[in-house]
């Protein structure tokens, strides 16, 4: 039940209610008058949309290309894969049987175009197959509402006495377009296959996809691992044959109860070595909960790129080539610890020490910026500068001694200041102030410890200078 324009109406009815003459859009008061003991529930559009997405994910077991058609439908692109089930009829039968097992009532249609399939599913007998190239004959007998057009256009067609799509098709196109707008023409052409239609697939159609149907549901870890190895080998054989490598692999274990369990691994550079990729998957398969058993496994490769065959370096030669030969190690660490925990540092052109370093993924292209070795920077930089008590008798000079973590350091040598101001062009002009200036000094104490300290802000008579320790040179 939903509320639209201030009236409680039925949003959807089940089969028994439909048999009693109730229909969606009926006023709730009328429906309760017909059927006093009607059981109603509040409509939950968000939950419905999520359930549809879950169903779309489940349908990946049939085809990698699935497009949701809100609020209550989906398109399944079965081009070129019906033979895996022994024909379209067998596929539809399997599809219906599996959904029926989960108590999901379903109507479906198979046709050359999404429009024709939609019409067949909603207005045909609910399980029809349209022979290839014959959607015209099939659609001619269906009402115009099967064309996915607006209710207004539909009502107007009815008023003009056009009750079949065939009658509409016989009219001159120019008149149709003038009277009903471009929508009707477009939908008609899409249903006939004369105009293209783009489906918003849940995930882009991916040719690097493989599936393995299992005769018996499996659930032991050993079996999961073995199946993983098998399917990776199949996909990698294809990748090898076409000279490609992928940087991301996603394996999905489809459980008997229809909940896919996915595991993903990423690689620093494209790869197609089955053994290596399987080894990346294996430690993470314990995340897979097989439930009552897994009956199908799918594997998809993403970010596929051409991978030229590389000659392994001669044994006597030192390693060269930007270190790509250690990519397997980087992949292992990144997949075990998390991709954000393995990085290579990249110089950023900024004087602010905290901003001088950016992290980039290993083996990603390096930007030309570099750090100036003549500007001494500490080897340990504290994320937050630590306050120190410094004694600096002359305002603009480095301190003669300072206390850090309860220990007194007498300054023996110092150099600086290196004045680092905030990057005023990055902040609104009102927020810029001279107090955000730091004067950095590199100081050495009597014991030889080298520190990077700074005084915050400019010198002001009367106000005590604030000193901070930001890093250690070692």
């Amino acid at each position, binding site marked *: 039940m939903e509320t639209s324009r201030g009236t409680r109406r039925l949003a959807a009815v089940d089969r028994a209610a439909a048999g009693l003459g109730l229909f969606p859009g009926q006023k709730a008061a009328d429906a309760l008058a017909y059927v006093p003991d009607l059981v109603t529930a509040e409509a939950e559009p968000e939950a419905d949309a999520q359930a549809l997405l879950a169903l779309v994910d489940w349908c990946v077991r049939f085809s990698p290309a699935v497009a949701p058609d809100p609020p209550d439908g989906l398109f399944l692109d079965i081009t070129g894969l019906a033979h895996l089930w022994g024909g379209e009829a067998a596929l539809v039968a399997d599809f219906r049987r599996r959904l029926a097992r989960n108590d999901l009532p379903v109507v479906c249609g198979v046709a050359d175009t999404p429009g024709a399939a939609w019409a067949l599913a909603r207005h045909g007998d609910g399980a029809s197959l349209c022979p290839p190239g014959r959607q015209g004959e099939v659609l001619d007998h269906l009402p115009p509402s099967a064309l996915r057009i607006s209710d207004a256009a539909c009502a107007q067609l009815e008023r003009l006495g056009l009750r079949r799509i065939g009658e509409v098709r016989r009219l001159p196109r120019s008149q149709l377009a003038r009277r009903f707008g471009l929508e009707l023409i477009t939908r008609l052409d899409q249903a006939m296959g004369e105009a293209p239609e783009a489906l918003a697939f849940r995930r882009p159609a991916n040719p690097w996809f493989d599936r393995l149907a299992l005769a018996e549901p499996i659930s032991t870890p050993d079996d999961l691992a073995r199946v993983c190895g098998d399917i990776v080998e199949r996909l990698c054989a294809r990748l090898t044959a076409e000279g490609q490598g992928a940087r991301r692999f996603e394996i999905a274990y489809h459980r008997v109860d229809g909940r896919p369990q996915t595991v993903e691994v990423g690689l620093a550079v494209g790869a197609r070595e089955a053994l290596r990729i399987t080894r990346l998957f294996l430690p993470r398969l314990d995340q897979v909960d097989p439930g009552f058993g897994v009956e199908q496994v799918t594997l998809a490769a993403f970010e596929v790129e051409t991978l030229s065959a590389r000659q392994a370096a001669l044994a006597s030669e*030192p*390693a060269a080539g*930007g*270190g790509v030969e*250690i990519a*397997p*190690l*980087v992949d292992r*660490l990144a997949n*075990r*610890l998390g991709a954000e*925990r*393995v990085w*290579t*540092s990249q*110089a950023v052109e900024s*004087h602010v*020490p905290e901003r001088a*370093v950016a992290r980039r993924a290993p083996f990603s292209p*390096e930007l030309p910026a570099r*750090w100036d*070795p*003549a*500007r*001494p*920077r*500490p*080897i*340990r930089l*504290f*994320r937050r500068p630590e306050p120190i008590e410094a004694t600096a008798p002359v305002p*603009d*000079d*480095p301190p003669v*001694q300072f206390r850090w*973590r309860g220990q007194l350091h*007498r*300054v*023996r*040598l*110092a*150099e*600086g*200041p*290196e*004045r*680092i*101001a905030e990057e005023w062009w990055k902040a609104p002009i009102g927020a810029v102030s001279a107090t955000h200036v730091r004067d950095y*000094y*590199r100081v*050495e104490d*009597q*014991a*030889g*410890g080298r520190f990077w300290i700074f005084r915050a802000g*400019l010198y002001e008579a009367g106000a005590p200078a604030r000193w901070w320790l930001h*890093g*250690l*040179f*070692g």
Partner: protein
Amino acid sequence: MSSFTATGRALDAVRAKIAALETGGRGDPASLSFGEVSIDRCFPGGGGLPLHRWHELGGEGMEAETAAAPAAFVALLARPLLKMGPAVWIARRDDLHPPGLAGLGFPAGGLIEVWVRDEAQALAAAEDALGASGVGTVIVEAQACDLTAGRRLQLACEKGQATGFLIARRPFGGGAPGMAGGSAAATRWSIASAPSAPVAGRPGLGAPRWRASLERCRGGRPGAWLFESPGAYSDTEIQDDAHPLRLVAELGDRQLAPAQPARPANPPVRFPVGGEDAARRRRA
């Protein structure tokens, strides 16, 4: 005469045999010379720092927690090894500042940094990295490494032909790092910063110096030296042949040197950075 050379040859053979026994029978002669015979002599075989092993380094006092001096020293030790393959730096804390490495002449742009969650992960990642093919150097910051873990690291070093450096580092507020006790490391060093010697006529600090004491050396003997990195924080091109660490001859007893004035004797250097003009005006 001839009997004399024969005796010398026999002696050499015996020395080689003893060296082989002391290194545990592994005939792995790869080593990195410090370019200084007095140092190289302390290591087994007399060739310098043994490669394809792992070495343990640590500091004392606050350095046991911050590990800045050992990190800088390791960066310089490992720099000549970079031509054997990329380096991996594994740490639990992410306070390593790559511009600091760059200032020491260590090209940080190709360094792979790994940030682990705990001690076990650090050692596991180090073992994995040491055993991987193509890796040249692995630097790992860990609290301690017991005999079993150390032996595993050693086997990984031999498998992957990589050299490892373990920086003993106490976690923040934790106990002392477990440098004591048995260890499978090839060498164990204690590193401390040492006062630099400013160049006459140039203000500021001199080239960074470290007091490195080789506390234990498998098949060798301990020693202590004062090292300097002459090329640090300079724009000059780094020569690949010379070792980045240079031995500093100790002149007399440093403790007896006249105490330096607390105030810096030299006027501070000003770097040409933004805002400098304003500072100068204010001074005037």
